[in-house]
C-alpha cells in the first residue's frame, strides 16, 4: 500500500499510557465524550476529569447514538426575541470526542455542508463545530448492520479527524489530520514516537481485513444499479407499501441517523422572554410536512417512507452532491419493525415488476 512510516511525518506511534494521559488532559479542558460499553453496545458519555485515568475503552465500531447531537442539538435555542441578545447562549463549551468512526466523520462532513458551509449557518452547530476536537479510530469490530462499503466508504477514517488511532501491537498508530491535532501532539511530544514501517504495515493489514469483512457481510445486499436508480424507477409502484409494512412510525431511524437533519422551529416564551427553538424532526412522522389548516402532501405512511429514501438517495445528492447515508447501519439496529435499509434497497431493484405500477399515465 506504500504508506511507509518513515516517509510520512504525520504518522506516529503512541502507547496506551500516552492515550490515557492525553484523554486525561482533554477531560480537564473540555467536555470529553468517550465510548462506554453497555449491554447493547457502546454508548457515548461524558467523562468527568478524574475518570479519564482508567484505560480508555476501544469501541471497534460506531457507538449506538449518532454523534450529530453534540453539534446539531436535539433542542437548541437558536434565536431570541431581541436581536441584541441573540448571540447569548450560542457559545457552547469546547468538546472533545474520542472514538469517532469513519462513518461518523462522513456524517459530520455531510452536516457541515448543510448546516455550516452553505447559505445557511445553523448558529449552535457552527459555534460548537468551531470548538471541537475529534479523535477517531479505525474500525476493528464492525457490527453486522455496518454497510459503509456499499456507500463507497471505508471502515477507517481518511479525513475529518484531528487525530486518528489504529490499534497495533503495544499501542496505536496515530495519524495527524489537522493543525489542531498537530498542536495536541506538540503539547504531548514525549508521548509520541514516529511509527515504524512495521507498525504502519500492521495497521494497513488490519484495515484490509476489516474492509474485507464489511464487504463480505454485505455481498448479499449488493445491487447492480445505484440506489438512486432503484428508487426512481419505483416512485409509482406499490412496493413501498410492502417494504414499509412493519414500520410503526416511531422515527427511531431519523433520530439514530448521522445525517438526518430535519428540524422544526418552535417559538415559545418559557420564562417570559420569547425564544426560538430548533427541535429535531422526523420525516416519518405524520406531522412532518403538515401545513397550516391541516393538509399534508404526504398523508400516507408509505409516501413518507418513500420520501425518506428518496431524500437520502435521490434528492439530497442532487442538491448537495453527496448521498445522505453513510452506511453506519444504526437505522437497522434501532428499528422495531426490523426494517433493514439494505434489504429495502435490494428489493427495490430486484422485485420491481411492471404490473406493480399503480398509476399508469
Amino acid at each position, binding site marked *: 500500500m506504500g504508506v511507509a512510516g518513515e516517509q510520512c511525518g504525520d504518522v506516529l506511534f503512541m502507547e496506551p499510557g500516552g492515550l490515557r494521559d492525553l484523554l486525561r488532559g482533554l477531560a480537564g479542558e473540555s467536555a470529553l465524550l468517550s465510548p462506554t460499553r453497555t449491554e447493547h453496545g457502546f454508548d457515548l458519555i461524558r467523562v468527568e476529569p478524574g475518570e479519564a485515568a482508567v484505560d480508555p475503552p476501544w469501541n471497534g465500531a460506531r457507538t449506538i447514538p449518532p454523534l450529530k447531537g453534540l453539534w446539531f442539538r436535539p433542542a437548541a435555542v*437558536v*434565536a*431570541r*426575541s431581541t*436581536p441584541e441578545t*441573540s*448571540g447569548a447562549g*450560542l457559545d457552547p463549551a469546547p468538546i472533545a470526542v474520542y472514538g469517532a468512526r469513519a462513518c461518523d466523520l462522513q456524517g459530520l462532513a455531510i452536516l457541515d455542508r*448543510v*448546516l455550516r458551509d*452553505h*447559505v*445557511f*449557518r*445553523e*448558529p449552535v452547530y457552527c459555534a460548537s463545530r468551531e470548538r471541537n476536537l475529534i479523535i477517531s479510530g479505525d474500525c476493528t469490530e464492525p457490527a453486522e448492520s455496518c454497510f459503509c462499503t456499499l456507500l463507497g466508504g471505508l471502515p477507517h477514517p481518511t479525513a475529518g479527524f484531528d487525530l486518528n488511532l489504529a490499534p497495533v501491537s503495544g499501542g496505536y498508530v496515530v495519524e495527524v489530520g489537522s493543525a489542531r491535532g498537530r498542536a495536541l501532539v506538540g503539547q504531548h511530544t514525549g508521548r509520541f514516537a514516529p511509527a515504524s514501517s512495521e507498525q504502519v504495515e500492521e495497521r494497513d493489514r488490519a484495515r484490509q481485513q476489516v474492509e474485507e469483512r464489511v464487504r463480505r457481510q454485505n455481498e448479499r445486499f449488493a445491487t447492480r444499479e445505484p440506489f438512486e436508480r432503484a428508487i426512481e424507477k419505483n*416512485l*409509482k409502484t406499490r412496493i413501498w407499501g410492502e417494504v414499509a409494512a412493519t414500520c410503526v412510525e416511531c422515527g427511531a431511524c431519523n433520530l439514530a441517523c448521522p445525517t438526518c*437533519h*430535519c*428540524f*422544526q*422551529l*418552535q*417559538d*415559545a*416564551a418559557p420564562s417570559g422572554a*420569547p*425564544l*426560538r427553538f*430548533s427541535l429535531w*424532526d422526523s*420525516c416519518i412522522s405524520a406531522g*412532518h*410536512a*403538515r*401545513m*397550516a*389548516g*391541516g*393538509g*399534508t*402532501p404526504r398523508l400516507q405512511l408509505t*409516501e413518507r417512507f418513500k*420520501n425518506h429514501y*428518496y*431524500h437520502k438517495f*435521490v*434528492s439530497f445528492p*442532487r*442538491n448537495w452532491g453527496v448521498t445522505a447515508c453513510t452506511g453506519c447501519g444504526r437505522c437497522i439496529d434501532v428499528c422495531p419493525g426490523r426494517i433493514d435499509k439494505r434489504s429495502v434497497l435490494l428489493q427495490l431493484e430486484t422485485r420491481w415488476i411492471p404490473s406493480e405500477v399503480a*398509476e399508469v399515465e
Partner: protein
Amino acid sequence: MNDLQPMRARVEDVQVETPTIRTFVLRPERPVPFRAGQFVQLGIPGIGEAPFTPSSSPAVAERLETTVLRTGFVTNALHALEPGAEVGLRGPFGKGYPIDHFRDREVLVVGGGVGLAPLRALLYHLFSAMHWVRRVVIRYGARNPAELCFRRQYAEWAALERVDFLETIDRPAAGWNGRVGLVTTLLDDLDIDIPNACAVSCGPEVMLKFVTYKLLDIGLPPERIFLSMNRNMSCGMGICGRCNVGPFFLCKDGPDMCYADIKDIPYALG
C-alpha cells in the same frame, strides 16, 4: 448573522379584506427588497412564524403588506394584532416569479381565494412594466362574494389599458349578479394568443391542479405554466426538510414552480 433571527417590523395598519382575510401593512426595521413571488416568514415572538408572500408592490422595500388567511395557530394570532403591534420578519426567501419569461407575452393570471395575494405583488410589477408585456389577463375566483379578496381594486385594474379582469364565485349567492362557477370556467373561452401566452396561477392545491389541466387543454405547454405551490416552508433555505416537491425545495427553488419541472413528480399537485 443569524439566519433564524427575525428582524422587527411594526404593524402600521390592518385592512380587513374578507371575514377571514386581513392585510397587514408592515414597516420593517430595515428595508426588505423582494421580488414578486418571494416570501417572508412573519411571526409573533413567542408564538411562531409562518410563510407569506407580500401582496404589495415589489418596488417598495420600506413598507410591505402581507395578506393573511386565518387558517391555523399563527394566523389566528396574527389576526388578533392591531396597528402598533410588533412582529418578527425573516426573508425574503425563494426565487419569486420568473418575470423574464413574461417578456413580450400575454400573461394569464389565474387566482383563487387568498391566492390573489402573491399575485397582486406580481400584478403591481406587471402594471408598471406594460411596455414589455403584451397583455395581462386576470381570472379570479372565490367561494362566495364575501370572500372576494381586494374587491375594491377590481374596477381600477379592469380599467387599465391592455388589462382584462374577470371574477367569479363558486356557487350562486343572494345579491350576486356576477359570474358563477369555478375559476376554471373562466378559462373556457379565453381570447388570448396561446402561442404567445404564459400563465401564472396561485390558489388552493386542488384549484391549481384543475387550472393546470385546463391550461394544458387549451394548448399552453408545461414550460409556460407557472404555479405558486404550497408546502410547509420553515427555515427558508432548503435545509429543514419539509417543503420538498420531489427534489425541489419550494423555499429555495420556488415557491413558484414551472409545471414542466414538476409534472412527472408523483403527487406534486396532490
